[in-house]
């Protein structure tokens, strides 16, 4: 089986979907320029060579037009895969995302479908406050959108394919520090490639994966924080602390069952996310467990997230703001020992 990075897996998914279904096309900034970037993170590299500039639509810097055009094209039977270069720029098109794409099917009484995909890179990478956000929580909040958060190349490919085939709008958040093959320190030094099967596969939405089993504490985490949580869990295992790490893979729909089953086993829940604490997706998850999982808990639900600040530029500041493996370890250990 070949091994691909997330960027490669996404590219392969798009390529295969474009081959499979001629309604699929790509639209975004710098995605198809000859000798160009292949998008801000190389994901679309080569696709305009293969599919031409009609199906790989390079746009002006116009996020409203990108998203709005995707909505319009989707309504007319196409399957656009739109992207913004940084998820921070989703806010430039918030009206199109929140007021148009999300509501069109509903407002039409179900007669108009908007089968579009919107890809957005998240995560802090020493670029300052406007190129750093992890806004998954905002969009999880909007009825009408499904939200995928692939942390592995295998998932990235399978979730993107499911997204393309969905009849409604799907947001895919991709983490900038996870695009590559890994082995870099920021990503915890891990191999970030996955074995990718030769045959076509889709990953159903709403099915979490237990990345690691353990009986002492449940951690729910996505994207980079999922990898950091795994790293923390590995280190804590050396102390005899066994942590279960759950990767929801999609925030909407969210796999409450897998999470609650884990909490039933461990009695303790820690949610780790990169977005700032107040109002992130972790708040929703905590609220759900504080309701339907209340009787399963034997300790307060904890969240570890970025502090409630815009993202600072300086590495020393950014590293302080974003949850590190060390901070996960510390909090997880304290929770297991009943100290918080």
């Amino acid at each position, binding site marked *: 089986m070949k091994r691909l990075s997330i960027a490669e897996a996404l590219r392969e998914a798009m390529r295969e979907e474009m081959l499979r279904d001629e309604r699929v*096309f790509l*639209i975004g900034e710098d995605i198809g320029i000859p000798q160009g970037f292949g998008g801000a993170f190389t994901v679309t590299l080569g696709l305009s060579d293969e599919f031409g500039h*009609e*199906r790989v*639509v390079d*746009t*002006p810097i*116009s996020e*409203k*037009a990108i*998203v*709005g*055009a*995707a*909505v*319009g*094209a*989707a*309504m*007319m*039977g*196409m399957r*656009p895969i739109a992207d913004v270069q940084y998820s921070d720029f989703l806010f430039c098109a918030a*009206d*199109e995302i929140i*007021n*148009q794409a999300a509501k*069109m*099917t*509903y*407002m*039409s*009484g*179900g*007669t*108009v*479908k*908007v*089968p579009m995909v919107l890809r957005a890179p998240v995560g802090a990478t020493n670029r300052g406050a406007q190129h750093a956000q992890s806004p998954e929580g905002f969009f999880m909040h909007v*009825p*009408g959108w*499904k939200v995928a958060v692939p942390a592995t190349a295998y998932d990235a490919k399978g979730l993107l*394919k*499911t997204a393309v*085939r*969905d*009849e*409604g*709008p799907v947001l895919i958040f991709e983490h900038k520090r996870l695009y590559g093959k890994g082995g870099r320190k920021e990503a915890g030094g891990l191999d970030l490639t996955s074995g990718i099967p030769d045959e076509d*596969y*889709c*990953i*159903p*939405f709403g099915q979490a994966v237990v990345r690691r089993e353990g009986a002492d504490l449940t951690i729910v985490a996505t994207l980079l924080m999922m990898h950091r949580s795994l790293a923390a869990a590995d280190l804590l295992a050396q102390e005899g602390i066994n942590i279960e790490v759950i990767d929801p893979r999609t925030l909407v729909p969210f796999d409450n069952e897998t999470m609650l089953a884990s909490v039933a086993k461990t009695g303790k829940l820690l949610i780790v996310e990169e977005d700032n604490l107040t109002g992130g997706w972790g708040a929703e998850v905590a609220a759900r467990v504080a309701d339907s999982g209340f009787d399963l808990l034997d300790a307060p639900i904890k969240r570890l997230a970025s502090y409630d600040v815009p993202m600072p530029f300086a590495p020393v500041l950014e590293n302080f703001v974003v949850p590190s493996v060390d901070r996960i370890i510390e909090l997880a250990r304290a929770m297991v020992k009943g100290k918080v």
Partner: protein
Amino acid sequence: MISPSTPPGLLLRMYRDMIRIRKFEEKVYLLFLEGKVLGTIHQYQGQEAVAVGVCSALRRNDCITSTHRPHGHCIAKGVPLDSMMAELFAKSTGCCKAKGGSMHMGDISVGAVPAIAIVAGGVTLAAGMGLAYKLQRSDRVVACFFGDGAVNEGAFHEGANLAAIKKLPVVFICENNFYAASTPMQLTTPVGIAERAAAYGIPGVVVDGNDVAAVYQATVTAVARARRGEGPTLIECQTYRTVGHSRGDAGTYRPKEEVELWKQRDPIERLRRSLIADGAAENEIAAIEAEADREIETAVAFAESSLPPQPEDALLHVYGEGVTP
């Protein structure tokens, strides 16, 4: 009088649709006062020639996008009055199953995308619709309606620019009624609207929006250009709403004389005079009017007798529904 060289049969059909709009709106206003139509309404009286002139130049499978003021557009594009009235009555038989309401009226089966009540919100969507037609190698076009107020929104700019640079089959119809809610255009827009077309390298034309034939001719030209793959046109239709901005607006911010002046330019009256001058029979016209009355009565009866949705229906239609791979 109205512009020449439009087939008389077509003019009569246009008259019919304009009358249907006028009478529909007048009835809806009364029903609103009676409390049968709920929420808010933005009415179309005075602007009928725009919707009808434009939609008469479209094919059934061409599409329109509309605004917070969509009743006229929908009727002109062929949405059945029954389902429109039922929508206003918040009945399950409404064209949006009572989920949309006045501001989101539409029926995709006749090419009327559910109206978009975010000012200028339809402009980027229209560009995308045009993009779809282009990719599909179809010769469909989309007519995108918006008001004078919309041309100052970023969405107008981005959508117009994308349509222009990609030569998409879109016709932009600005209904310039000189006011955005209470705000007169000269307070917000430093140049004439059609002049903005030059910023996108596309044709911009001004037409008398109360002359249905002029609107029709301008649209025919723009549609032909769009179908040829030469890209969008911006048509500024100068018109006036002779009613308030929304229910309950007395329009006190507009000079009385201005309103009066425009009432004298009533597009329906003008077309009627022109038809008669061209030899249409009074009774033919009266028959059209009577038929419109009947149609509206039927629509009201349909709406009245329809059932409201079940409360739990609120939970349907949120997602497009997914695949089960």
